[in-house]
């Protein structure tokens, strides 16, 4: 048996990427050390730039980066305008203070702005930004559609509904444009209340039409086929899922907020996961569906998901050992210490940048050698998009 020297390009199991990202995100929730947070953000960015595909969703990281910057800026601006006053510190500048009546004493507008308060605001904003960035990284690395495909059988049909909705929104926008143009063609105003109505009615009509056609097609193609199962097993499935989800909520709270629940967070989470698993498995018996080319879970998946877990475990251990520097305070003003253990843990999460397979098989929207003509205004929404088609027979001269 020989092994190919070059590993086959494939897309990693989406759940692996989400586990990795979740590990990093929870790390970010459990520290406010700006250096650790920056490190987490940097790790996420490096992995994304090394392993994202050319698919359209891969570009979402840029959006999340911008969103993160926006969050930080907003947090600082709010602090400057409405921050708590009267805490001693290094005053940077003083804004004119707006006198407020005594019953609004908790709120203040303007006044002296201290370096400490700005740093605090910056760190809080940074934390939120890094959590968003982790989410964005998962979004860029794993196709949302493939993630939906790996849902358990019992949730699959909900997943399909979500997929359909995801495709539907951009089409609605497109059809609004088309209808506007058609209105203009008739010399009918497209603005104002009456214009809006004139646009909304045909757009909604065509949207309804399309939904009906899609529903017809899905029904005719076996969507929602059921196998008769005993009532008791349906009850078991429902009960286990609900209890599991409730426990999971408690467990997650325990894990994120390390102090409460006496460290029972992880065990509770484990029980909850087990219950949910039972519920999904029993519920899944009702549907006879199978899965086409399921994403395999192999060594790279273990490595990627594992690296996220390592980062999280390192952070948790550091918390348990009460390592200095996880929670920093800027009053009094001091340079935060950098704890070694979390840094090592977070750096382990960099491994997927080399360990994950290079994406290649991801479907490009437009294959090379083929040009796509944008839908023309006159063609109806959702109908066939005209494309310049290289493989149709050429015209005779």
């Amino acid at each position: 048996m020989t092994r190919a020297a070059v590993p086959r390009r494939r897309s990693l199991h989406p759940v692996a990427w989400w586990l990795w990202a979740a590990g990093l995100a929870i790390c970010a929730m459990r520290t406010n050390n700006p250096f650790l947070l920056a490190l987490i953000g940097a790790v996420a960015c490096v992995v994304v730039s090394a392993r994202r595909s050319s698919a359209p969703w891969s570009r979402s990281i840029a959006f999340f980066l911008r969103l993160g910057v926006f969050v930080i800026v907003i947090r600082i601006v709010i602090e400057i305008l409405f921050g708590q006053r009267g805490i001693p510190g290094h005053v940077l500048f003083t804004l004119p203070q707006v006198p407020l009546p005594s019953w609004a004493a908790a709120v203040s507008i303007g006044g002296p702005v201290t370096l400490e308060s700005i740093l605090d605001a910056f760190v809080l904003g940074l934390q939120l930004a890094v959590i968003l960035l982790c989410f964005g990284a998962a979004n860029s690395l794993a196709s949302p559609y493939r993630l939906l495909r790996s849902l358990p059988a019992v949730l699959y049909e909900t997943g399909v509904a979500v997929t359909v909705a995801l495709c539907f929104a951009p089409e609605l926008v497109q059809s609004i444009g088309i209808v506007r143009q058609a209105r203009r063609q008739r010399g009918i105003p497209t603005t104002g209340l009456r214009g809006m109505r004139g646009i909304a009615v045909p757009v909604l009509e065509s949207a309804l039409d399309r939904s009906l056609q899609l529903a017809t097609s899905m029904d005719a193609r076996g969507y929602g086929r059921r196998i008769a199962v005993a009532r008791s097993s349906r009850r078991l499935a429902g009960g286990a899922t609900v209890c599991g989800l409730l426990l999971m909520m408690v467990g997650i709270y325990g894990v994120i907020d390390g102090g409460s629940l006496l460290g029972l967070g992880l065990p509770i989470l484990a029980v909850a996961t087990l219950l949910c698993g039972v519920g999904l498995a029993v519920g899944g018996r009702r549907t006879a569906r199978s899965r086409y080319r399921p994403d395999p879970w192999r060594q790279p998946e273990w490595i990627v998901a594992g690296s996220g877990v390592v980062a999280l475990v390192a952070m948790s251990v550091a918390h348990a050992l009460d390592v200095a520097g996880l929670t920093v305070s800027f009053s009094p003003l001091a340079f935060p210490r950098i704890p070694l253990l979390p840094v090592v843990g977070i750096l382990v999460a960099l491994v997927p940048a080399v360990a994950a397979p290079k994406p290649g098989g991801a479907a490009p929207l437009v294959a090379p050698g083929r040009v796509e003509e944008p839908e023309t205004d006159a063609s109806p929404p959702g109908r066939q998009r005209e494309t310049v088609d290289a493989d149709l027979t050429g015209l005779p001269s």
Partner: protein
Amino acid sequence: MISFDRVSFTYSEAEHPTLHRVSLDIPEGELCVVVGETGTGKSTLLRAINGLVPHFSGGTLAGTVTVDGRTTRDNRPRDLADVVGFVGQNPLASFVTETVEDELAYTMENLGVPSDAMRRRVEDAVDLLGLQDLRDRSLRALSGGQQQRVAIGAVLTASPRLLVLDEPTSALDPAAAEEVLSALARLVHDLGLTVVMAEHRLERVVPFADRIILVPGNGEPLVVGPPKVVMRSATVAPPLVELGRLVGWEPLPLSVRDARRQAGPLRTRLAPLVPPRGAWREPSADQPEAASVQKLTVSYGPVVALDGVDLAIRPGEVLALMGRNGSGKSTLLSTLSGMRRPTRGAVLVEGRDPRSVRADELVRHVGLVPQDPGLLLYGESVSAECRTADKASALASGTTAHTLDLVMPGMPTDRHPRDLSEGQRLALALAIVVAPSPQLLLLDEPTRGLDYPSKDRLIGVLRELAAQGHAIVLATHDVELAARVADRAVVLADGQVITDGPARRVVCHSPVFAPQVAKVLAPEEWLTVDEVRQALEEAVPA
């Protein structure tokens, strides 16, 4: 395979049954074509086969529909998904997933086919329908013909015994339609599949059919039989059959090949006669142009849709714009109507740039009937629609209603535009666009979903408008329409004009765009059955 036993069906709130005591047996391995005018119940008949009627549509069904031993009474459409593959009119609207390969597997996933079998069947479908190069593509980036083939493949992978298709070629250019039909014929011949499909453009499907089911409508009984028998008396017939009936050929030819074999004597008879000249005149410089296109280039980002097009359109001429899907026809129309800005070059309508004219004045110069006429309509009733049009274009009240009466007399004025038939909707949209009397009239794919009588009426209206001096440009895949109405034909390919000349000469010399009559009578340049009939009648007394 399929049996209808005294089936009657009435939609809820309808006064008359759409299907009335229909009894029908379709044996295995046949390709059946359901024909009939619009609104006679073809789609209802097709949807009754897999139970979409009445499970999905509502209404009351009496009698029994049995498919492969299972009745639709006890089985919902989803339960029949392993026996009946149903492909709707609009493939894009029926796609559930994102990429071709996922779509091919979707039905099988619902049926719970084991994964190794799924893998094998997807490969088989890819081979059967020639989808090798498309498997990773996004469904939305495919051409119409490719989409239709994927839609067929997507139901085929469930290995149904029966395929039901509702107008599979209506949106396709001639080459793409050929591609889909030959794939279907192959499935019937190689796999013994039973295929039932509805189609308006009979000239495309009749040669492939084993059996024709004619739905006459109005509760009259179906006419079922082999094409040669049914076509002899059918109210809807392709030009080839009409030619055969005219000349009295026996047996009735269904394909161009059959007809050509019998056409020898007719060709000799026609040889000394001259086909009536179309109205096309050689361009004369002094005639004012209704519209002119000068070195027009339109690009969408890196994609060039039109590439240096020059065109002069004169009043009173009907110009057919042809070319495969995506060759730039719709772009040219929307640029002429002022909706799209030229990237380079210019478009002038009556000497003015349509983009510089205010919308309410522009309607007097150029009017566009879009591919889906429903886009123009949003009123509560036909009469309300007419009133809105009068007001928007500042016309004397009643003008649009009057125009509508000329285009299609006896329209139900209180009906909601959505409840009109395809032909009536087109007539209403056409009336709205024509009422302000634009010098230049543009129509995008006007015959999609139209039956033969509606098409005849449209042709009459267009000829009349041309005679009044309107310039008409129609983008169309329908070669029979172009042959009957156009004076001049322009063929676009990759955004360039590759042919421009009298319609007769252009279509007769293209194997893709030639109408059936021209193919049968080549090298003589005859286009339509009417021309032949007229020439023969004139020749007899002489």
